[in-house]
């Protein structure tokens, strides 16, 4: 494929273009198996859509009637995505090999804008395709334009707000630890061998994932979609609490996998035993998981859900957590 001439005047974009071409080249020709898999997935999606066609129309009507919340969700989503991507783009640029090249600030901004906004464009197009399919299957074409316009309006508004929002200072952009609880030593003058740091690491990682821009998204979604109309304020709070805890537990599940891998690599040259490695990493995380699951389950039961189903779900979650932790720790530990 020929390189467009205008790209030659934009070295940063040119480097991305060339990298992209190389990735495509390495991927090789599309294999028959991939085509068959895509066809099967497409067919399955079509069957599901046809099966749900009677519900689809009512969903389309509901989305159409509640276009203001749809707009609000689009604003929150796009602002969150752009804020996160913009931050990453700025950090990535500072670390990139082209950061020291004499490029104009306009060229740099253009590259960062493409990095920040492109994922949003793909997501918007994907949502439009899904809505188009829903409209085709259910015959709700008249509802389609307002929905697409609401999503487009929200996406553009949210992206614009996030793009022009001032970023944190550069040194703050890098520090994940600004969201974690600081640990004051009991006796700063002494050092003692201790594995407490390993236990703290997982929780710190989960806290750094729960940064405000991520947590805000969860709150908005929960408020809009998870709290049914007509519930009491107390029940609403219980639902909100359960979702917040659930968000933390999911972050903690993923943080143990990340930390196990990083700790395994870092501590590899030491004679640490598997028990000494896995115990501290898993123990506090498991304690948090058990306590959090119990608390979230209590919140869900308080909001009126059947207790037996909640208990089953909680137990299933704990089993999943233990299986994931065991596999992650075993795979990360190598002597």
């Amino acid at each position, binding site marked *: 494929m020929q390189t467009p001439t205008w790209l030659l005047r934009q070295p940063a974009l040119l480097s991305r273009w060339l990298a992209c071409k190389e990735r495509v080249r390495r991927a090789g020709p599309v294999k028959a198996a991939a085509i068959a898999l895509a066809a099967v997935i497409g067919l399955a999606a079509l069957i599901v859509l046809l099966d749900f066609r009677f519900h689809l129309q009512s969903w389309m009507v509901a989305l159409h009637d509640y276009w203001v919340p749809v707009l609000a969700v689009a604003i929150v989503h796009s602002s969150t995505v752009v804020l996160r991507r913009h931050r990453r783009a700025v950090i990535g640029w500072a670390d990139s090999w082209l950061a020291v090249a004499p490029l104009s600030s306009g060229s740099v901004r253009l590259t960062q804008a493409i990095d920040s906004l492109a994922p949003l464009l793909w997501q918007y197009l994907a949502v439009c395709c899904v809505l188009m399919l829903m409209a085709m299957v259910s015959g709700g074409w008249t509802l389609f334009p307002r929905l697409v316009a609401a999503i487009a309006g929200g996406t553009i508004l949210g992206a614009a707000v996030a793009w022009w929002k001032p970023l944190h200072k550069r040194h703050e952009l890098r520090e994940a630890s600004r969201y974690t609880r600081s640990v004051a030593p009991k006796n700063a003058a002494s050092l003692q061998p201790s594995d407490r740091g390993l236990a703290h*690491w997982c929780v*710190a990682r989960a806290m750094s994932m729960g940064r405000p821009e991520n947590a805000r998204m969860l709150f908005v979604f929960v408020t809009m979609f998870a709290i049914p109309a007509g519930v009491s304020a107390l029940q609403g709070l219980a639902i909100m609490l359960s979702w917040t805890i659930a968000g933390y537990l999911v972050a903690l599940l993923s943080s143990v996998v990340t930390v196990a891998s990083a700790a395994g690599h*870092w501590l590899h040259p030491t004679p*640490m035993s598997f028990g000494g490695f896995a115990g501290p990493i898993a123990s506090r995380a498991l304690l948090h998981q058990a306590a959090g699951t119990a608390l979230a389950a209590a919140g869900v039961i308080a909001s009126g859900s059947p207790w037996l189903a909640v208990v089953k779900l909680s137990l299933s979650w704990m089993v999943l957590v233990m299986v994931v932790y065991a596999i992650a720790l075993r795979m990360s530990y190598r002597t």
Partner: protein
Amino acid sequence: MTSRVLDVAGLHAKYGAHEVLRGVELHIAAGEWFCLLGPNGVGKSTLLSCVTGRMRIDAGEVSVCGFSLVTQAVHAKRCLGVASAPEQLPDLLTGRQCLEVYAAAKQLDRIDPELLELAAQLKFTRFMDKCVDTYSLGTRQKLAVLLALLGDPALIVLDEAFNGLDPASAVTLKHLLRERLSQSRCGVLLATHSLDIVEHYADTAALMLDGRVAHRWSQAEIADLRRGGGEGLEAALAAAAERG
């Protein structure tokens, strides 16, 4: 403890089909500062990865203080002090937590007060309770070195560990290593491009080329080169590279 802290015999290692190390032989005695030299991409870091047990060896034998790194890995690793690359340090732990965790991982009963003294000399103490992700490259490097020195290891493995250190800290560290070496408390294996270190501090050195040790300089030869000044060493390196 044997007087030999590291024995590498007939070491072969591959990345996929690409053979990076081709029969490396290397021996370091207690009290010896050994410098590994060579252009980029000849296998220096791969050799260090094999010596520290990070990378699986395909053939040959690596022993630390007489313990095989393959069959007696735990014993061998008790004798090892490795400075991780600065980017490998855990970003969400404080320096103190890193030291305490590493000490626990090395199964130490206590942390030597000498290490705290060194931390103070390196001006690291004020960073001790800050998270690693707030550190500069030099500060991370200091922490990596402190971790390597935990537990008075018999073999200290450093990969370009003086990069990023300010001159005062670099001199402090070099003197500390020299002092430990003079008491035969350890051996040092350092991969470096800095001829200054070879000239002023190393006892022995080797040039790696194409996955093999192409040339060795004995203690006497290094002493001769030292007398000849930096240019003598540069010329010797160039000549050895030419022959290799």
